[in-house]
């Protein structure tokens, strides 16, 4: 028996969301009195044994360059092989872009119930049930998994990374790698910016900022906090900001430690994408703006005056 964690790479580096998944999987292994094992696909410059720090005891590695190009179909077969090899009864993914591609496939392949978007450790006292977000963060559901093998994909930023002093044993997984059907022709990374889905702090602007020429305000504050930038839907729809910055019910759902909303009214569809943030700060000149009801801290005032002062105060703190 074991808990198997899929350790996801981006350009050969372990993603932060995967470290959360490892810590989470290790906690489940402890709960079930079994071992935590990992599976890594593709070549990496990282010291895999050092991942033992996060609680994984053994890592199955398929060191094959063709895997540096993600193909969910190919990955699914290899992870299924690792699951057999490690006799896994629980398999953990991060509910990130790759987890969303593989976990459902693996669920079908292994006939293993999937809980997508878990936010807490499973309750194993009576069967196996896991709490997840539903209704775009407006509620939680407890999902009971009825199959012998269980798959959980953990929401990014929902579980704290913990570390100890330990090393993992790294073993080669000798499953043949089949050729995939997906040919990747380009990867366009937005350079120099903090990735929105992984950011711990997000500074976001709405229509209250009047126009794209005023975004220096948002960017300066973001820079001072090493934060990612985001925006409301009308801002992206008007082309003031790129579409990938749009957060909310129909955009990206995020859960940073700190979300700072500037000139955003706080419509229910906007809140749906950000209400899982740990701390919310709202800056709006209208004291009646609905966003204040969902905020932890607020300043009623003109963003053009208030925000530069906040940026200054942060620079002084550092």
């Amino acid at each position, binding site marked *: 028996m074991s808990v198997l964690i899929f350790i996801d790479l981006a350009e050969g580096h372990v993603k932060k969301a995967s470290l959360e998944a490892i810590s989470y999987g290790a906690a489940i292994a402890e709960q079930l009195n079994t071992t935590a094992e990992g599976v890594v696909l593709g070549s990496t410059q990282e010291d895999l044994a050092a991942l033992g720090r996060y609680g994984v005891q053994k890592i199955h590695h398929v060191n094959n360059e063709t895997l540096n190009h993600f193909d969910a179909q190919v990955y699914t077969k290899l992870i299924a092989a690792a699951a057999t090899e490690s006799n896994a009864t629980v398999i953990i993914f991060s509910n990130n872009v790759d987890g969303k591609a593989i976990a459902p496939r693996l669920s079908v392949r292994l006939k293993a119930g999937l809980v997508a978007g878990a936010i807490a450790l499973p309750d194993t006292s009576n069967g196996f049930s896991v709490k997840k977000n*539903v209704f775009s963060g407006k509620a939680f559901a*407890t999902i009971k998994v*009825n199959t012998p093998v269980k798959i959980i994909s953990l929401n990014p930023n929902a579980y704290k990374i913990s570390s100890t002093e330990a090393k993992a044993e790294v073993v080669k997984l000798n499953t043949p790698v089949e050729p995939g059907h997906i040919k990747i022709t380009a*990867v*366009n990374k937005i350079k120099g910016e903090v990735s929105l889905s992984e950011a711990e702090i997000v500074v976001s602007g709405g229509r209250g900022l009047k126009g794209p020429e005023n975004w220096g305000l948002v960017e300066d504050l973001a820079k001072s906090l090493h934060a990612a930038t985001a925006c409301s839907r009308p801002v992206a729809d008007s082309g003031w900001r790129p579409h*990938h910055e749009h957060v909310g*019910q129909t955009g990206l759902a995020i859960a940073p430690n700190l979300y700072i909303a500037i000139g955003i009214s706080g419509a229910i569809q906007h809140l749906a994408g950000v209400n899982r943030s740990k701390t919310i700060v709202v800056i709006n000149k209208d004291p009646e703006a609905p966003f204040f009801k969902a905020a932890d801290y607020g300043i009623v005032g003109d963003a053009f005056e208030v925000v530069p002062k906040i940026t200054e105060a942060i620079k002084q703190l550092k």
Partner: protein
Amino acid sequence: MKILVCISKTPDTTAKIAFTDNNTKFAEAGVQWIINPYDEWYALVRAIELREKDPDTIVHLVTVGGPDADPIIRKALALGGEEAIRVNLQSQDSFVIATQIADVAKTDGYDLVFTGKETIDYNGSSIGGMVAELLDQPYVPLAIKFDINGITATVTREIEGGEEVCEVNLPLTVSCQKGMAEQRIPNMKGIMGARTKPLTVRQPVAAEALTTVAGFELPPAKAGVKLIPADNPAELVRLLHEEAKVI
């Protein structure tokens, strides 16, 4: 090319979220129902655009649900699609739903299955991947662009901090999100036409649920906002640093 677009019914984005029956059921009283926005705005509209470019393209819609889903599927037909299939089954288990969609896709021989990125109620993001595995075909999730040339699709998907472009041959399943297309409003002709488009009801194929919903809960209410005077932003920074400990 035959495209199958998966349409699901969800509560309106402004619907009040509450539960009944000892927190085991979503409180449906007074709730307005809509087509899941990702299915409508992105999956369906992109499929319609592909047909507009190439009139040989066939667009059919599928939903897995009870008769209460009929008005929703008619609304979708008002935007486009030649016909719709409803598999008469209500389930909250993704595998059971995916099995029905895969069965339709296989029986009727669709080349391309479009789903939305996720349902805004259960937020599973799972159906597309499950359908693809059941059909043993490639799956590109979270697509923001889709074009087709012969049997080769060029798809751009979201990745952390950017996007990835890939080429992949049909048959294929794709989950769609913002970027794929622009939202459309149905016109009168579409709405009238939708009434007479064929909507076939099929009986489900057998599939066992892998999961069950044990119950729901609402998040604890926020303690209330702490307001800081506009002339003292340094106080906000202090609170974030010392009290919330987030900077």
